[in-house]
């Protein structure tokens, strides 16, 4: 069993580094940690970085998960290879570029680029946002799946993910006490469907709604509230069509032993209990 501790970072390719930096700082509200020739490292919490833009094709989308130590990493590589995944060991250079001690790369059954990392760097200085969006940290991702039932098995049986709730056949999965770290989304191809950052209060969600609307950033869903996790949310579109989410108030699963996933119907009120409707953003597709 591959023991995922937490989601660590997202790496996104972009043909336009300047636009990506401008959006990340003046709209999203992250902090520039390091600006390389072909990479931009952005902070959202006490980690050295949680989002990295690299110069290249926007379809290059990778998510990194932290595992305990290098032994665990080697065992994970063996497990994945036994299951027929092509596992690439990260070179020292590549590890340095990710600010981690060691890592391996593979594809999940849908073809998503996944990396498992050991000892991702923390920063000694606290996170200091570029705008007052109230961000407290990078928290979860929506991950495309060409077959949610198959991918649920991968994440829950090969890895340690547990299903917290389901909407239709779409699982919201946790790897720690937080309601979900991976939300699968039915889609025709692999990719990251959204990148979530937590904010301090529901005031921040509403403030950002007006702030981003004024700047003509496309709001694609919300302000709303998920009945599953309880989170108040706002989804909006960034560079290269990537959807970012702010949310606050994600429930924690208090009793790991007795929690049973709840089944929600595949309908709008299962995604937003306030009545907001997605616009310009695909909902996890039931079929």
């Amino acid at each position, binding site marked *: 069993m591959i023991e995922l501790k937490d989601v660590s970072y997202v790496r996104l390719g972009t043909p336009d580094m300047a636009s990506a930096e401008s959006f990340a700082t003046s709209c999203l509200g992250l902090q520039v940690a390091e600006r390389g020739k072909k990479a931009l490292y952005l902070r959202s919490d006490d980690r050295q970085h949680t989002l990295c833009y690299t110069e290249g094709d926007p379809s290059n989308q990778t998510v990194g998960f932290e595992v305990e130590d290098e032994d665990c990493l080697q065992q994970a590589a063996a497990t994945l290879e036994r299951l027929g995944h092509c596992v690439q060991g990260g070179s020292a250079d590549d590890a340095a570029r990710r600010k981690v001690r060691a890592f391996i790369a593979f594809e999940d059954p849908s073809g998503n680029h996944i990396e498992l990392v050991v000892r991702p760097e923390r920063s000694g200085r606290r996170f200091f946002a570029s705008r007052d969006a109230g961000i407290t940290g990078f928290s979860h991702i929506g991950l495309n799946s060409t077959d949610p039932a198959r991918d649920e098995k991968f994440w829950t049986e090969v890895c340690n993910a547990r299903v917290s709730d389901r909407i239709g056949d779409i699982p919201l999965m946790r790897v720690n006490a937080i309601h979900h770290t991976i939300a699968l989304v039915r889609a025709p191809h692999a990719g990251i469907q959204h990148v979530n950052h937590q904010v301090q209060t529901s005031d921040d969600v509403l403030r950002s709604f007006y702030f981003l609307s004024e700047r003509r950033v496309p709001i694609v869903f919300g302000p709303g509230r998920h009945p599953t996790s309880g989170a108040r949310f706002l989804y909006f579109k960034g560079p290269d069509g990537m959807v970012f989410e702010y949310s606050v108030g994600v429930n924690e699963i208090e009793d790991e032993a007795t929690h049973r996933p709840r089944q929600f119907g595949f309908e709008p009120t299962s995604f937003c209990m306030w009545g*907001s409707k997605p616009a310009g953003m695909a909902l996890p597709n039931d079929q």
Partner: protein
Amino acid sequence: MKPDSHPLVVSVCYIRLSARELQASARFAADIFGLQRVAEQNGEIAFRSDNRFRTVSFSNGASGGSSIGIEVWDEPALDEIEKRLNKSGFASSRASASDCERRYVQAALLAKDGSGNSVDLVARPTQSGRRYFPSRDAGITQLHGVGMQSTDLERDLQFWKELGAEVSDWVGDIAYLRIDRLHHRIALYPAKQRGLLYAAFEVETLDNIMQNSYFMQERQIKIVQGPGRQPCSKQIFLHVEGPDGIIFSYVNGMSEMGPGHRPARQFPLVLESLCEWGSEAKDVPELSAGVS
């Protein structure tokens, strides 16, 4: 008000509105805003928002105009208020039996503030034995307060001070008046004409504010401002356009003032003093920092 005595006035207990189109107004109150329609009497349609017998009524104009009801502590408080208002030169008269019946109160002093707004000071407004059961799940828990348009702020302030109200904060010359532990129940807005600007109804949670916001959007009901949060009182609000230009508001989470007194704070008359989230009022100068 002496610290060991009770206050003269205790709550905003009703609003009476004359409606140009009675049935349309009634449909708005029940089907859209989510109040409970209770009685039709003397050509008036009445609604509940809480455990009181009625808090909102619409009349066709023939049976008497608009007024807001302010509940006083008891009948002797009415006498005291009458004395104070007379001394300061505010017109007032005792309500007749039929005036009282129409207001569902035991006694009333019908007064006008400095702008000429009708303010009914009422004793023993009627409560209902049955719990409040609205027509839809808007989450309303009570009539919370009112915003009044003022053409003579100085005189209006004097009027409310005679009743024992105190200014909690200023935004420009907008005065937020408290009569109980909450930041304000009455707000005075400098305006070109007198009248009721809004009637505010408390809802249970932020969820209700947001649900009502989407409910209105879906039905293409005009949202005047919000969802927003008032910085001085921390109250979350959604201002919805009601019949005859009166705003009906959902509110939640107003801060309490606490036992210690502090001086009223002055905020500048700019948009962010009226909403800390960034919502703007459209077409209502009183709410958009547009009136000096």
